């Protein structure tokens, strides 16, 4: 009995996950066709070999500093905080990363790994286009051939990013199958990889997919949280009271959260896309309203019908329009370490404008979901408390969408 009580009271050591087979509790794993097992094992071995290799680390750190522009500032949103009159809100400025979002932290890491593995051709999927742009940039920087799969619906919604990818030499392939969005782009990227495993490296853009991707992408994005932690300590000599980040697949969120998971006094909030409202069924919030299943190589919370068919999603932001979520988030939900909430399209749009008007920062629509929730949260907190939002991307790509939704000419 004493042992049982001790087991319950011992906090989970989140740094030990995933296990060797890629499991985060019951989530994660490696659910792929047999053909992809060997390349995933090859990737796992390469990652284990290079993750602590001083030369690899030095090369990555140099690129993060001189090419990506790290460290990014931790910015105090003073006017907005004062208007709310609650907690002091700080923004981790990942929108200032080269190419305009956190995605490049991961693509630089994976592209350098691809070079080490002798792969000459890169495939990637993209939703909003941010991961595609970040992959295209990393490939141009390192002289790799780049093919990006993008749902045909997203190609239409994010034409500026399509052009940016092409300018950097990437081939963009519109995907017409299924719902013609991010999940279908992932299917197509997996198919390409299966047909070209010998010379091709698949750069997955989020903390989903089969093991080792959720771990690898998390580790490359954890630089966000590591810097945030150091910045909080050096600027204020304390840790924040709360962290807030938007969650589609969940890479910017896990990047901010991971270095803080052991700091039990830091409350952590992941914000999913509520679309038209979670109660309408037209949303992209599997953690809020889905159930566990298996998709794209891992077990995680999914939006699916009773037959186990994956459902189409809805969100005003293409980058959150995904029916699954990284398996570590599913585990963090079940363990209660992170609270997951949903913000609907209208709330996100209002936050988009508020951030632009009060702070002169136009955030990505994905990020606007985190901003909207952080505003609500701050109002319930004291002025001596502190929130950090991961400002995961800039909103230039979204101005046409916002204008269209609001019936204006940009």
């Amino acid at each position, binding site marked *: 009995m004493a042992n049982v009580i001790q087991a319950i009271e011992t906090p989970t050591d989140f740094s030990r996950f995933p296990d060797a087979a890629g499991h985060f509790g019951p989530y994660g794993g490696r*659910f792929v*066709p047999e053909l992809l097992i060997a390349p995933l094992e090859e990737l796992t071995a390469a990652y284990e070999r290079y993750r602590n290799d001083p030369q690899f680390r030095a090369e990555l750190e140099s690129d993060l500093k001189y090419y990506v522009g790290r460290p990014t500032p931790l910015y105090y949103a003073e006017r907005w905080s004062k208007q709310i009159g609650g907690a002091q809100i700080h923004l981790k400025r990942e929108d200032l990363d080269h190419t305009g979002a956190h995605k490049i932290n991961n693509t630089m890491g994976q592209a350098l790994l691809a070079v080490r593995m002798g792969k000459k051709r890169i495939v990637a999927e993209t939703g909003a286009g941010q991961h595609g742009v970040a992959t295209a940039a990393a490939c141009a920087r390192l002289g790799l051939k780049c093919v990006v799969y993008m749902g045909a619906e997203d190609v239409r919604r994010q034409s500026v990013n399509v052009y940016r990818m092409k300018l950097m030499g990437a081939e963009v392939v519109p995907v017409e199958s299924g719902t013609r969005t991010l999940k279908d782009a992932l*299917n197509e990227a997996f*198919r390409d990889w*299966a047909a070209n495993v010998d010379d091709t490296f698949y750069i997955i853009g989020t903390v989903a997919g089969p093991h080792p991707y959720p771990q690898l992408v998390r580790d490359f994005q954890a630089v966000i949280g590591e810097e945030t932690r150091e910045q909080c300590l050096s600027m204020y000599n304390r840790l924040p009271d709360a962290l807030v980040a938007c969650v589609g697949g969940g890479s910017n969120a896990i990047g901010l959260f991971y270095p803080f998971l052991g700091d039990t006094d830091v409350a952590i909030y992941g914000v999913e896309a509520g679309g038209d409202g979670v109660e309408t069924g037209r949303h992209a919030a599997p953690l809020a309203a889905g159930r566990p299943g*298996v998709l794209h190589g891992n077990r995680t919370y999914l939006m699916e019908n009773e037959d186990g068919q994956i459902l189409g999603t809805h969100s005003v932001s293409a980058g959150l329009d995904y029916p699954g979520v990284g398996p570590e988030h599913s585990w963090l939900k079940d363990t209660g370490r992170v609270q997951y909430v949903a913000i609907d399209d209208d709330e996100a749009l209002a936050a988009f404008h508020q951030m632009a008007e009060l702070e002169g920062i136009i955030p990505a629509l994905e990020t606007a979901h985190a901003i909207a929730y952080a505003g609500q949260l701050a109002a319930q907190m004291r002025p001596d408390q502190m929130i950090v939002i991961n400002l995961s991307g800039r909103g230039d790509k979204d101005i046409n969408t916002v204008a269209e939704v609001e019936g204006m000419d940009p």
Partner: protein
Amino acid sequence: MSRIEHRFAQCKEAGKTALVTYVTGGDPNPDATVPVMHALVRAGADIIEVGMPFSDPMADGPVIQAACDRALLHGTGIKGVLEMIREFRREDQDTPVVLMGYLNPIEQTGYDKFCREAASAGVDGVLTVDLPPEESSELGAALSAHSLDPIWLIAPTTSDARIKAICAHARGFVYYVSLKGVTGAASLDTDSVGSHVDEIRRATQLPVGVGFGVRDGADAQRLATLADAVVVGSAIVSRIAEHADDPAGMIAAVESITRDLRAGLDQPLVEA
């Protein structure tokens, strides 16, 4: 003796390579599948694989992906597919039926319930494309409890050690994926197929089937002496798609391609 084992024994005795044909259940509509299954048998198929439609079939090429989409338009899932197999079994108690699909619909049905209902409908084996042996202990136990054969894929990228491990889990037959890619892709390399099949034979006494990329009688002919069975899917499914609105034409086209495949297998190329 299971129906699959029995069928391979019959083929061996007759000195022929088994023809395994694939159709997606409910493609292009729920009424089409059972007549197509009977047509496959009439034209010379020895084993039938029936695909359980899935919204995100990441191991399949465009042909079978489109077949899944057509079936899902009518809401065909595992339950509908099992009804089709039950109906097929009223007239055909001999032809083995293997279900092929992805894990998520099986998981949502529940492993035990799925296996119980599949066995009772007359299914003989189950091939779960995205479930590697490492993750399969629970489903494996349920399959075993209901006397269903787990069919495993082996790929050109599979290591020798892994081939042994997979074969240790397998029953019925093992399925060698004859190319790097998705179902229905081109470019069969028979030399490479032959050497991989030899490796598999060193690891198991089970019959070895070869598939992915077999498009016609000529392809089948080239593989006939290499394997115990040749598996054909996209070539048949594309005939179904061409005649989606013409049930009689569909049956005729399915019989025609199946006869062509059968003829190829029955006149193997003898290496000079």
